[in-house]
């Protein structure tokens, strides 16, 4: 095992991921075959992009760490990112912002009333459905703040300080036991679920890959810093109340205290973080760079829209 618990590269989901993952694993890769292969459907493109991004986070046990900056892989990544970003932008309509930014932002989030998995867990879900939800949520929760951490060196002084103030709490304020992703790992272990990052990647629907890839796309491109911080703010602004519903559902079904504690922590933490993310992080970003306002809303919309699509896919699969 390496310095971080890592997993094997995922199962391929189509033509591109098949040749790509094979090339990433082998010591004598044929990059030309990879570059000549198109994804044959969206799930194939999303799993390929997820695996390419993962080289910049924790990597894979069966892939050489040196491939992180392999030019052909960066070329494939770019070819996948461009249509992905274009599709996300196509779904978004720039809002007309007239009131002060923070009011407009909170109203925008409140006006996007998507389907809620937390409400389903609170009242109706059975234990197997909740275990399934927790396992697919690992792709997000076990690296919760990492995509936002890429932003730090890319900001002006005031938003940089503001983002670090928020992230310091996310990363446990110096105490590894309080690091949010670690709290979730402890909760998973208490539930008898696997806690290493990516353990459930072969089970997740395409909507989860899209959510995760959007965060990496925004985080890894300095050009998209406004979208990254808008995404962060929208996420924080839709977390406290759903986290409360999750604690009630988990309690109803007799889940372990460690997992309830994870969501309980987010009730209070994210009531702070939503104020910091909207007013201080995005507020100071837009003071410094007012032209980023549309991208802040683009990131927020993408966060809300992709969560709605994910919730829809899960509820539909459960016929709920």
């Amino acid at each position, binding site marked *: 095992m390496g310095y971080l618990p890592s997993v094997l590269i995922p199962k391929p989901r189509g033509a591109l991921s098949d040749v790509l993952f094979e090339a990433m694993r082998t010591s004598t890769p044929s990059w030309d075959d990879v570059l000549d292969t198109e994804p044959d459907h969206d799930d194939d493109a999303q799993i390929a992009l997820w695996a390419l991004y993962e080289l910049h986070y924790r990597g894979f046990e069966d892939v050489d760490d040196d491939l992180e900056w392999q030019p052909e892989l960066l070329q494939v990544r770019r070819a996948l990112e461009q249509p992905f970003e274009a599709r996300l932008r196509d779904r978004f309509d720039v809002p007309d912002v007239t009131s002060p930014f*923070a*009011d407009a932002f*909170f109203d925008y989030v*409140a006006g996007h009333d998507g389907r809620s998995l937390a409400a389903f867990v609170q009242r109706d879900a059975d234990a197997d459905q909740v275990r399934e939800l927790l396992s697919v949520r690992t792709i997000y929760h076990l690296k919760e703040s990492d995509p936002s951490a890429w932003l730090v060196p890319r900001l002006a*002084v*005031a938003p940089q300080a503001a983002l670090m*103030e928020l992230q*310091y*709490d996310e990363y446990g*304020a110096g105490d590894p036991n309080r690091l949010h992703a670690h709290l979730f790992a402890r909760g998973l272990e208490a539930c008898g679920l696997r806690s290493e990052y990516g353990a459930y990647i072969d089970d997740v629907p395409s909507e989860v890959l899209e959510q995760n890839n959007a965060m990496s796309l925004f985080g890894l491109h300095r050009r998209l810093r406004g979208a990254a911080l808008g995404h962060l703010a929208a996420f924080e602004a839709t977390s*406290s*109340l759903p986290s*409360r519903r999750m604690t009630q559902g988990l309690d109803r079904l007799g889940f372990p205290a460690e997992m309830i504690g994870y969501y309980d922590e987010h*009730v*209070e*933490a*994210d*009531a*702070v973080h*939503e*104020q*910091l993310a909207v*007013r201080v992080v995005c507020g100071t970003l837009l003071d410094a760079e007012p032209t980023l306002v549309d991208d802040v809303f683009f990131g927020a919309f993408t966060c809300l829209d992709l969560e709605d699509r994910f919730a829809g896919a899960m509820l539909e699969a459960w016929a709920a």
Partner: protein
Amino acid sequence: MSVPEFDHADVVLCPGGPMLLRGEHVVEDRDGVSHRTTRPVSAVCRCGKSGSQPWCDGTHKVIPRRDL
């Protein structure tokens, strides 16, 4: 361009929302019970409806808006 000095408050009143407290404090709730802050920034409920008194839990967003 001069290097700016920024305004940075220890206590922030969020319009319609909680009061943010930076740093360590002990907050006495309405029943006289003391609560020590546990995080770098804490949000104190101002709408009175939070289920996690004295801390904010976001409930202000789902009740009729008041001039806080």
